């Protein structure tokens, strides 16, 4: 049993054309910048938007149920799904219990039984005793937990999470993310998580699909995507400098002109990925003979925890994390010329 979807939607200038497959029990993250079409894909899967083309089907024992194709469009209320929206969308006129019971009531469960089940789900998501409250009387994290209970109470086959954590503050986010991870592990159906936050995607998903401008640009496990990004967007998200070039043994000639020495030999079109914390900056050309030394210029700097993230321009454009002390000692201002160095063994190289 699994979800197979080929979603084609035209939205103004953007043509969304995305292929997704989600196995039972699997959590697929659709990661992408705002406006890439991720939410459009989610709306199609939910049945809230009829696609312009493609096919959405759910495998069931002994066959499949088609939700969308050229002839069929199953409306959302006939799809066995649960959706958690970004800002929870709990009905303000119903108590928390009645919100969670809503999906049972619409499917014909009697009021008392629905409320009992809803209460059990509230216990499960850690909201025991809050069932009589109105959604406005819940904190952001509590509301999102209630929304999760509401989505799961009907035992859906497909769970859709639309930026479920992005409305929460950083601290709450951490706890709710951990709880969500636990609930997703227990959930037997397919899960599609839409997010622009790589941490959510990496922490919650078994597999990540990166969507940019309406198409899938990369697909893999969170670890693969984090280690070997294939587009600038993903590289920026995971905090890597991504440099396309041509492999010539243990050196790579970058498309932008520079040369990078790498630890493992590579041939043909490759990506070079450099982690910011492996880049060292020097006021003058460093002594000795490190293989990777380039003159660079500071383009911009932003505080990043206890370090300063420096965007460097030059033949080899890089990002470097230096300590605040080092940043001050180097006397860096935008436009400063410095030398950047990185060990060849620290540079990742993989085919394009």
């Amino acid at each position, binding site marked *: 049993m699994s979800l197979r979807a080929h979603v084609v939607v035209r939205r103004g200038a953007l043509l969304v054309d995305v292929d997704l497959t989600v196995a039972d029990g699997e959590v697929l993250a659709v990661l992408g910048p705002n406006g890439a079409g991720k939410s459009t894909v989610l709306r199609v899967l939910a049945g*809230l938007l009829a696609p312009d083309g493609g096919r959405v089907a759910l495998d069931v024992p002994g066959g499949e149920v088609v939700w969308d194709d050229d002839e069929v469009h199953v409306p*959302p209320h006939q799809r066995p799904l649960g959706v958690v929206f970004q800002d929870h969308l709990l*009905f303000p006129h119903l108590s928390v219990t009645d919100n969670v019971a809503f999906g049972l009531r619409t499917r014909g469960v009697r009021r008392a039984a629905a409320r009992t089940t809803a209460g059990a789900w509230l216990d499960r998501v850690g909201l025991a005793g809050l069932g009589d409250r109105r959604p406005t009387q819940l904190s952001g994290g509590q509301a999102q937990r209630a929304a999760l209970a509401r989505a799961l109470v009907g035992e859906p086959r497909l769970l859709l999470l639309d930026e479920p954590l992005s409305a929460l503050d950083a601290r709450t986010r951490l706890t709710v993310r951990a709880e969500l991870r636990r609930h997703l592990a227990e959930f037997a159906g397919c899960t599609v998580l839409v997010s622009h936050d790589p941490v959510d995607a990496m922490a919650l998903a078994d597999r990540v699909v990166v969507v940019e401008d309406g198409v899938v640009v990369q697909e893999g496990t969170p670890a693969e995507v984090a280690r070997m990004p294939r587009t600038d967007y993903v590289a920026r998200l995971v905090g890597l400098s991504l440099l396309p070039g041509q492999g010539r043994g243990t050196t790579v000639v970058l498309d932008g002109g520079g040369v990078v020495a790498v630890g493992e030999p590579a041939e043909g079109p490759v990506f070079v990925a450099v982690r910011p914390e492996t880049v060292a900056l020097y006021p003058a050309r460093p002594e000795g003979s490190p293989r990777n030394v380039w003159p660079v210029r500071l383009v911009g700097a932003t505080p990043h925890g206890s370090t300063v993230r420096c965007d460097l321009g030059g033949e080899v454009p890089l990002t470097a994390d230096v300590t605040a002390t080092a940043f001050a000692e180097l006397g860096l201002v935008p436009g400063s010329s410095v030398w950047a160095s990185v060990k060849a063994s620290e540079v990742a190289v993989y085919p394009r």
Partner: protein
Amino acid sequence: MPAPLLVPALLGVAFLVLPLVGLLVRAPWSDLLPQLAEPQVGQALRLSLLSATLATAVSLVLGVPIAWVLARSTLPGRSVLRAIVTVPLVLPPVVGGVALFLVLGRQGIVGRFLYEQFDLTIPFTTTAVVIAETFVAMPFLVISVEGALRAADARFEDAAATLGADRWTTFRRVTLPLVAPGVAAGAVLCWARALGEFGATITFAGNFPGTTQTMPLAVYLALQSNPEAAIVLSLVLLGVSLATLLLLRDRWLGRSGSPVA
């Protein structure tokens, strides 16, 4: 404040307030209760309350669905529909009364059919009063509810759909409770307008005490014969108007945005 604005503003306020003050000054306060106890007055008041309430009920049943179609459906020609629905707002009520008479009178397109098939005559009955009031007052309800529907977050309806609710269930269990304050405000406006209806009523329903003579008609008639009674009846209508205003202020300002439980 600049005088060119302040002076006309004060004049305007005086213009609006003075007639009401005049009414209060001329009111036969000592004679009030006996006047109100007149059978004619009680009759007119009961008829007015009954017909305005029925007109509001009809407007709710027909007008809320119109508002939903205008605000939520993707039907083509909705702007034309909106224009049609709001025509009675700008149409002189007398014209509305004439139009109703032409359609529902014994010689009218629908009226002849009703008379010949069911022996039903509508004009000059209490039913005609309710129809005339509904015709004039329903647009107030439609406009108010449509505004509330547009202001309500339609994503709650998406959420309901993903929870297995079809569109009718969604409307009953989610949309309607969310816009309840707007519906209530629209109903009050509609009721107040129906209560004050004069032109369409007198044209279509006539002026028969006990069956079609509502308060405004009684006021008009009394002014010719018994000015004191006219003033008393006017005071009653003024009181109802002020009560309406207070009720709406509570709806709009007191519980702004929060749905009625």
